[in-house]
């Protein structure tokens, strides 16, 4: 009857997270019928864009068997420096150009991570911990530490641009910003790379076993290098969107979010040991965190309990499969 479902459907993290999301929505709708409206959906979507893009990057790194904690610093570095650059040399710059600059900056910083990790073989956590400090320290020391709110006007235009905006007959206001397209683009592109290219399969292979990958002739170094460059580019994109949509180039923002993003990804089923992780899972993980962050109040839990709730979700989301695996291992002897 359920042949079309993957064999492990019922035990997958994706299923668990989707279940929790549905449960949450159900309870929320019961306590406040206004919850299940297009307003909520558009609010949540908006809140998911930046985290979503960052999470895709974090997932890719996890799949390759590494961990990256520097992507927030990359994002804010790319965003801030591209904004400052634009303001100094060409304030009338069209936003797509700023976006490209930011993405290129991000990729360049990612390349630095990639260099240390792929070519010098340093442990990923340590490298990215170091570059987190370096990127942010460099940014704040040499590029600027002021929050800039008079952005290039085109960035403001971007943030005010919407794909759709309006009020439903029931009186529910919604707006879907252009930035949502960026998230969509990132998902499609990453899906293509991971599923349809040898490069993508190599990333999974390396995450499964670096040694095996090396032995069958996968170019491990360049593949890893690519991963960090790509993730850097995504961070650059996320950063510039964050800046535009937030109407401020804040060099202090984003950093501090890295662990929550990784948590969302792990909730979605990616494993720290590498080789496992899906886009669906990642998006579900992000959705869950965003919903909890934004809608706890609707189901009658004061927002001051937000942290506790997310913490417990992470513990459950990672604990249930971990415990199951532990039991299975004990069973197998």
């Amino acid at each position: 009857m359920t042949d079309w479902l993957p064999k492990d459907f019922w035990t997958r993290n994706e299923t668990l997270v989707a279940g929790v999301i549905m449960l949450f929505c159900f309870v929320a709708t019961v306590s406040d019928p206004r919850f299940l409206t297009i307003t909520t959906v558009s609010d949540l979507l908006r809140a998911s864009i930046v985290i979503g893009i960052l999470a895709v990057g974090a997932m890719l790194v996890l799949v390759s068997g590494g961990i990256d904690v520097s992507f927030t610093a990359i994002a804010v570095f790319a965003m801030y420096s591209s904004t400052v650059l634009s303001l100094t040399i060409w304030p009338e710059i069209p936003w797509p150009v700023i976006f490209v600059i930011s993405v290129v900056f991000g990729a360049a910083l990612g390349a630095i991570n990639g260099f240390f990790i792929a070519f010098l073989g340093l442990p990923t956590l340590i490298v990215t911990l170091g570059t987190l400090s370096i990127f942010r320290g460099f940014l704040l020391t040499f590029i600027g530490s002021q929050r800039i709110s008079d952005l290039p006007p085109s960035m403001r235009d971007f943030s005010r641009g919407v794909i759709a905006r309006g009020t439903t007959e029931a009186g529910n206001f919604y707006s879907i910003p252009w930035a949502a397209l960026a998230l969509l683009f990132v998902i499609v592109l990453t899906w293509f790379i991971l599923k349809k290219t040898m490069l993508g399969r190599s990333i999974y292979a390396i995450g499964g076993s670096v040694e095996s990958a090396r032995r069958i002739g996968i170019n491990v170094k360049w593949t890893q290098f690519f991963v960090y460059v790509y993730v850097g580019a995504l961070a650059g994109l996320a950063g510039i969107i964050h800046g535009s949509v937030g109407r401020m180039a804040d060099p202090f923002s984003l950093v501090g979010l890295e662990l929550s993003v990784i948590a969302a990804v792990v909730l979605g089923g990616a494993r720290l040991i590498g080789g496992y992780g899906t886009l669906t899972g990642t998006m579900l993980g992000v959705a869950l965190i965003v919903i909890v962050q934004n809608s706890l109040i609707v189901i009658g839990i004061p927002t001051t309990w937000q942290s506790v709730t997310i913490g417990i979700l992470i513990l459950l989301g990672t604990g249930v499969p971990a415990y199951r695996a532990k039991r299975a291992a004990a069973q197998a002897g």
Partner: protein
Amino acid sequence: MNTSVKDFTASPEFRLLIIMVFVFGLMSVLSPDRFLSSQNLTSMAFQFPEFAILALAMTIAMMTGGIDLSVVGIANLSAVVAALILTHFSNAEMPAAQSAIWLAIAITAALCIGAIAGLINGSLVAFFGLPPILATLGSGLVFTGFAIAMTGGSAVMGFPDTVALIGNATLAGVPVPLILFAVLAFLLHLVLTRTAFGLRVTMYGANPLAALYAAIDINRMLLKVYVIAGMFASVAGLIIMSRANSAKADYGSSYLLLAVLIAVLGGVNPYGGYGRVIGVVLAVLSMQFLSSGLNMLGVSNFARELIWGALLILVMVINTHAVTALRSSLKPPK
């Protein structure tokens, strides 16, 4: 004949010693009147213990190949609980003896929170099999979350004057926080090198599966590790509380990565099995000299962050190259 001396000069700790001496020397030369002033020296001694103690907590967790991302959460939750006890039950008018009793109760409560939090972390790792990084990431949010829920996210303040003593007083001219750090560092050193528990921690970190097969009681060991980390975090929390004369759910959030960074810089292997307290102490001192020295030179705090990161990667590059050299000079594993 001198193998142990030779070993030491080849060890990461020795390199750290050189770095520390170099930084100290450099700063003394660059700004002799200020860096070596007694004002600066005492100020340094007041500053670093709070995050240094968190680094010690991180060290023991890392020795097992784990990590404790909840230390700052534990520190703040402990401090918030202590602060609430103090603000509810004691006040400025109270006789000193009575407020001292409340202070003792608050401190005990904070340490209990640390122990319980550690027990929770340990159980998640030992009994539920969560990877430590996720277990403590989640639990850290929960601990912080409780602190937020208890305070509404605001700072708790209004303590009797005695509270300020923990973080601001001196004993025979030595700042109390420094004394606390020294005592804890020495204790941890003893525990790691001179007790069966400490050796087991190291061995487990080197190969958890082999530890299981060697009939080591892993669960109990892990519980102890995280309880120690939790209680160390509580002490750090109390110092922070005393120095900020207040407690808040998100104090010291920048200390988390700093603690990891110091531990790794101190030569602790983040995958477990190697680490020495002396290395961590040297790393802490290097960081503090560097950061104070730069402060003397009027360099912004942000540049310090930059330099810390660079130092970490530099040390890693040196250490791993040392490791490859070491490896090729030995017969390799199959």
